[in-house]
């Protein structure tokens, strides 16, 4: 029986990079921090608020997201959107993710036989 701690660590490792991919995909439609968090959670990407908010900042600094303040609603919100640069990087990342999936499938079939 694998210990819960070990399992959790490996799952964390596995999920780490996917948060960036998921955020870039989700932000093709502009959104603000908490709404994005909820959308990601609804789609099976549970992410901690204290990870996501700083991450959005970092992606913005790297030019992968653009942002715009919306002051029309009850409280001012910063809306993020995937930039052109972010889009092209996202495509590279998605290709790689697909490649990983293909490789794993191939490996599983190869070993099974």
């Amino acid at each position, binding site marked *: 029986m694998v210990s819960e701690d070990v399992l959790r660590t490996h799952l964390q490792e596995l999920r780490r990079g996917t948060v960036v991919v998921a955020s870039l995909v989700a932000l093709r439609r502009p959104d*603000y*921090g*908490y*709404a994005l968090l*909820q959308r990601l959670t609804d789609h099976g990407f549970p992410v*901690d*608020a*204290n*990870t996501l*908010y*700083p*991450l959005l*900042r*970092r992606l913005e600094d790297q030019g992968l997201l653009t942002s715009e303040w919306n002051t029309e609603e009850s*409280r*001012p*919100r*910063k809306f993020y959107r995937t930039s052109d640069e972010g889009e092209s990087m996202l495509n590279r990342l998605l290709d790689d993710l697909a490649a990983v999936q293909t490789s794993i499938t191939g490996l599983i079939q190869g070993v099974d036989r």
Partner: protein
Amino acid sequence: MNTLTDRYLAATLRSVPTQRRDEIATELRASIEDMIDDRTGGGADPTVAEREVLTELGNPDVLAARYADRRLQLIGPTYYLLWLRLLKLLLSFIPALVGTVVTVVEAAEGEGFGAIGPGIVAAMQVAVQITFWLTLTFAIIERTQTAVDVPEWTVDQLPDAPVRRGVPLADTIASVIMLLLTIAYLPFQHYHSWVRGTDGENIPILDPALWSFWLPALIVVLALSVIFEIVKYRMARWTWTLFGIRALLNLAFAVPLAWLALSDRLLNPALAERLSWVAEADNRDSLGLAIAVGAAAIVVWDLVDTARKTRQQTSA
């Protein structure tokens, strides 16, 4: 107003770079309020909801570090090994060197054995200083993200695979310590034996007359034995030459000792005044004989044991 949220924001923003502080504050406050609203909408008490949300966001210092992209480590994996290697290298000789110099200087000023204390203190201070400044330097390099060219590892750096040593390090260390303690005991007993004279003055165990020649000679033999142990460790295995030298050293120590003991010249005659048992000639003879036989037995046992090891290791 000084709500929990205000305090949380203040604590987080304290260590976030100034030029982005206001923007992060507005955004983070809105996010926190969104999260609270979401919970109160589900029927939760606002105060409870606020506590829960802030607990979920966690330690503000950690959050701030993530915003600032700051490392939560003193020295990271990039520099840790280099730091460790330099630290070991510097600590391996500088404190000992300084300690020795201080001891020698103090001794030259007439401190005698009292010079060892300041020497040890100086060595420890130097060790602490080295550790502190080296660690500080690396912590700064880590933080400023200065690109330091850490030399690339190459296969040429591989150390030789450890040979199976016929002479274990632990044995060598134990022998050297025993020898040093014996050397130290000879002058020590002269000043601090457990025997006191009638006026409370110290009575050495060994005859002070021996200091004119025999005790210094024995100390020289013991010092040579220390050197022998180190050479033996460097050579890593017993050879018949080493065996011969070992035999000579053993005899050079045991023969004078036994001879002095048998001719009743080893113990301080002044002891007899305090210990009546020693005053009787018969007892002195038996004690001398016991010392001589003991010394001979140890030498024989050691030589047999060494010969056995030498034969094993030279035939292999």
